[in-house]
């Protein structure tokens, strides 16, 4: 063990010193606050050990918002650095670390947890189930994700951040060219979070296939449930590839193997190949749930059933299938020759077909509808033209010959921000505004929401649209500075100003959460949007057991028809029976802690402590194997009390409301 204690904490940069101090102060503040309010047992009992899918979902969403802030600060630092030519705000090394963590955090620790969080809250409700198939495993998924995210985040104050890009290409990411431990964080933290994601994928496949309520055949399932099912299938298909690739990277970096070192008989491009075999499906993993969210919202707020439901399902399945067959378009310039590049050009362009079908279906859903321009719908409307720009530039990039010009320029960066921000971030905002009352029993403020919407969308376009032209003029990505003679200055400045507007938009969102928690009207019905799917057929916020009696489904848009036909909205006392629910468990949290500790030692290549800490992982597995605790019953009398309380409120849904 060669511990270099003088390199343990990152030193010598006032920005990082500031971050270190603020982290310590925040932690002291949180601990002091919890102790002062005597909330430790509450925290442990209600949140840390919970297996309730709604609470796990909320923890995912909260972490996702915090990570959005972290990744956003990285983005703003890059924009500040490139705002003027030859700026010296960040040095080259710091800039490398910032763009690397920005990419990893935004994809893996912002987009993924926000979407998985929303799935967690909504999917069991939408299919009329009381929880996911494996509740305790679900908690484990969350804690492994959280462990990976925390491990990755401490890298910038302890030991140094990864600096080889979010793609972490070899040979750059190998020990030879990146000897510091920074890139070990990449290999280990993402591995831990990835195990959590893989478990989530399995959990949701089983939940959706096995736990749908009576009468809900696959083709009567809401679109968000469909996209979640397909997303979970892609997770199960693609994440193991990344798991293997990261394991090989770990062997290369920690134990001196040569899977990706040319001089040692390895192949550096094998990393790029494996990375994108996972990486391309990964972008569909984040964008497909978003398509589902938009489908729900466009149908609810146009007050019409979704146009072309069957073609939507086929399109989603088609996108999923094609997503496995396009990975080479990320490295056409490797030079696999005309045959390979042509095939991957074709498969890539083919993806535009099912995506186009979905676009038209959304437009036709709105046609002749009575459109309600609430905040969730505004995000959906803005998504369509913005995503279209992202998609069209995607087809431009798909042409292998043309890609040799666009490759590694800001044109590409603008393209993928135009797909991922409308496709994921807009969707997440839309979903949070839409489902917020379901989670917390009050809406987010519409007026602040509109400020948030306009600032964010305008800021987004000003930030990324100039980058298309910068890229076409030859500005390369990941370059920390440029000369004044290049003439890039004005567009970079415009882009930087746009990013400030974008940031103010995000601040409005945070303010909206704060305002709504304090002041929003609590006296809203459990169905404030006059919605169509089953999650709205129960109380808001949802009681532990979701449904006192599992609903029965006859058609698509089940809740809409229940309201229209006045069926199944009320419940008789005698229909209420004891409900079996899973017990809380501390094991998933414990596993998160030991994974973090073992991962941390492994990052620093301290093998003996790492081995000792990983005994904790085995202990957790063994304890779980002998855990015969199979839940508890909520008594019918208690269920009746809860049901009476929310059903007898004024303005509740008893019959057809529209």
């Amino acid at each position, binding site marked *: 063990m060669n511990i270099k204690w003088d390199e343990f904490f990152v030193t010598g940069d006032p920005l990082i010193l500031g971050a270190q101090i603020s982290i310590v102060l925040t932690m002291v503040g949180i601990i002091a606050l919890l102790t002062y309010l005597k909330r430790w047992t509450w925290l442990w009992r209600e949140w840390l050990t919970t297996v309730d899918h709604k609470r796990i979902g909320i923890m995912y969403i909260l972490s996702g918002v915090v990570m959005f802030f972290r990744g956003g600060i990285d983005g703003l630092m890059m924009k500040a650095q490139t705002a003027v030519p030859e700026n010296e705000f960040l040095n080259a090394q710091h800039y490398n670390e910032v763009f690397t963590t920005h990419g990893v955090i935004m994809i893996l620790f912002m987009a993924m947890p926000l979407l998985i969080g929303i799935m967690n809250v909504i999917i069991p409700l939408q299919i009329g189930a009381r929880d996911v198939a494996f509740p305790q495993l679900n908690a484990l998924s969350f804690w492994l994700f959280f462990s990976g995210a925390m491990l990755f985040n401490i890298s910038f104050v302890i030991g140094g951040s990864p600096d080889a890009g979010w793609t972490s290409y070899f040979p750059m990411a190998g020990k030879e060219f990146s000897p510091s431990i920074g890139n070990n964080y990449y290999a280990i933290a993402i591995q831990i979070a990835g195990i959590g994601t893989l478990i989530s994928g399995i959990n949701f496949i089983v939940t959706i296939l096995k736990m749908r309520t009576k009468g809900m055949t696959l083709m009567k399932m809401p679109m968000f449930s469909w996209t979640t099912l397909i997303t979970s299938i892609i997770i199960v298909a693609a994440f193991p*590839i990344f798991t293997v690739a990261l394991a090989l990277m770990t062997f290369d970096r920690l134990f001196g193997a040569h899977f990706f070192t040319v001089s040692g008989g390895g*192949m550096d*491009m*094998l990393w790029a190949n494996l990375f994108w075999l996972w990486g391309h499906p990964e972008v569909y993993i984040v964008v497909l749930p978003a398509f589902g969210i938009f489908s729900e919202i466009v149908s609810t707020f146009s007050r019409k059933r979704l146009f072309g439901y069957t073609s939507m399902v086929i399109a989603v399945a088609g996108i999923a299938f094609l997503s*496995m067959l396009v*990975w080479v378009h990320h490295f056409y310039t490797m030079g*696999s020759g005309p045959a*390979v590049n042509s095939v991957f050009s074709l498969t890539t362009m083919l993806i535009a077909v099912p995506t186009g079908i979905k676009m038209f279906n959304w437009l036709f859903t709105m046609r002749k509808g009575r459109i309600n321009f609430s905040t969730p719908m505004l995000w959906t409307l803005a998504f369509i033209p913005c995503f279209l720009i992202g998609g069209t530039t995607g087809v431009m990039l798909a042409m292998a010959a043309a890609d040799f010009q666009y490759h590694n320029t800001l044109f590409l960066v603008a393209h993928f921000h135009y797909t991922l921000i409308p496709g994921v971030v807009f969707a997440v905002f839309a979903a949070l505004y839409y489902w917020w009352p379901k989670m917390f029993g009050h809406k987010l403020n519409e007026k602040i929401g509109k400020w948030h919407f306009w600032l964010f969308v305008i800021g987004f376009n000003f930030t990324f649209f100039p980058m298309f032209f910068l890229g076409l003029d030859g500005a390369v990505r990941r370059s920390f500075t440029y000369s004044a003679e290049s003439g890039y200055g004005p567009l970079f400045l415009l882009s930087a100003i746009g990013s400030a507007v974008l940031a103010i938009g995000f601040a409005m969102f945070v303010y909206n959460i704060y305002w709504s928690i304090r002041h929003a009207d609590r006296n809203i019905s459990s169905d404030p949007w006059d919605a169509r799917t089953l999650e709205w057929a129960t109380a808001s916020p949802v009681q532990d057991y979701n449904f006192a009696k599992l609903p029965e489904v006859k058609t698509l848009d089940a809740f809409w028809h229940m309201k229209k036909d006045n069926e199944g909205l009320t419940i008789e006392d005698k229909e209420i029976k004891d409900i079996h629910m899973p017990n809380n468990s501390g094991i998933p949290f414990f596993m998160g802690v030991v994974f973090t500790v073992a991962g941390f030692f492994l990052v620093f290549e301290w093998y003996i402590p790492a081995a000792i800490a990983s005994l904790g992982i085995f202990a957790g597995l063994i304890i779980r194997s002998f855990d015969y605790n199979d839940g508890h019953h909520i008594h019918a009398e208690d269920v009746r009390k809860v049901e009476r309380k929310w059903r007898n409120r004024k303005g509740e849904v008893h019959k057809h409301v529209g």
Partner: protein
Amino acid sequence: MSSNAEKGFPISHVVGFLISLILTFAAAWIALKTTLSIKVIMWIIGSLAVFQAGLQLVMFMHMTEGEDGKVNIINITYGAFMAAVIVLGSIWVLTSGHAAH
């Protein structure tokens, strides 16, 4: 599932067994008694092996029978597709063009 097999003569098993024998002897004969190049022989006996594996899954392993029959077929097809994409795809991509030279 069992009712079908116990009634009457197990014709599908016998047919499956005979086809398996034919495929095995064909592979042995091609490998030992022909003068084809090693590459061609490997391709032929490899294909025969895959074919026989599929045959046995259906004829003897009851892959298509029972309530999980359809699911089994979907899973095997999915597995085969993933394996083909990852293994064959990677080999193709990394050994073509000047990437490999």
